[in-house]
């Protein structure tokens, strides 16, 4: 997978060097082009080699999901912040972790923290639980389920 990514980058740089135009769109185009070429080349090969090509779309969809969540929740909070009354029901919830890799935990907690209303307090030392502060805690189990099916699932998909 790493090899393919590096290959993709190499292709991109060759493209840029060939065209001699140093700007974003050209880099981006070179990357896409390289990706496409590689994708063509690995078609029909073993699962291991295809992994890279599954990742990229997933990463993009993850990013879009993240931005969507972030905007949605931001508006929610904004409403609460601006209006005089508080609608909040805050609480600190223990979230049982499925992911066990440090990187994954980091990614997950970053995502959770950056979407409004929720905030990572800490990770337990045995990496089994995440303590999350939530502004709108209507139903604890519902909240845990949302994350499980939202961010955590996507992260697991992306990294495994």
């Amino acid at each position: 997978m790493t090899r393919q990514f590096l290959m993709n980058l190499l292709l991109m740089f060759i493209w840029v060097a060939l065209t001699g135009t140093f700007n974003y769109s050209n880099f981006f185009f070179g990357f896409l082009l390289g990706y496409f070429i590689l994708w063509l080349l690995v078609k029909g090969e073993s699962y291991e080699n295809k992994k890279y090509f599954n990742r990229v779309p997933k990463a993009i969809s993850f990013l879009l999901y993240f931005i969507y969540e972030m905007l949605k929740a931001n508006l929610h909070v904004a409403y609460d912040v601006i209006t005089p009354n508080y609608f909040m029901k805050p609480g600190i919830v223990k979230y049982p972790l499925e992911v066990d890799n440090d990187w994954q935990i980091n990614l997950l907690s970053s995502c959770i923290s950056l979407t409004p209303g929720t905030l990572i307090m800490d990770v337990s030392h045995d990496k089994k639980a995440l303590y999350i502060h939530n502004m709108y805690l209507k139903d604890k189990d519902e909240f845990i389920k949302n994350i499980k099916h939202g961010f955590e699932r996507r992260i697991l998909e992306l990294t495994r």
Partner: protein
Amino acid sequence: MYSRILKTATYYLIPVLLLFSVFILLRGHYKPGGGFVGGLIASIAFVMHSFANSVEKTIRLLRHHPFKLIPVGLIVSFVSAVAPLFLGQPVMTGLWYNEPVPIIGMIGSALFFDLGVYILVIGVTLTILFTISQSTK
């Protein structure tokens, strides 16, 4: 402070910061930046590491006590300052290599001077912070 999240975060933050510090160092002659700020940023990177791990581990990462960077930095700056003496020029006179080098631009004694500043600032900042941290335990 033991934070798994911070520890993981430093893995990717430190290289970014070091890269940024070199960038700031090299372009100082053309755009805002320079050895001083560059050095500070680099030391912030190591300070982060020490927060996330421990001072001892950071020193192990650096392989030497940062104190040893102080004379190194001084020597680099000193040499680039007195080098013109040997060419019969006044001290500090800028000596320049005629052809510009890509990315960095013109290479000259001023750049080495700034490099010395960079090294020294890392050395001093880390020396101070680490010595205090170690003595606080």
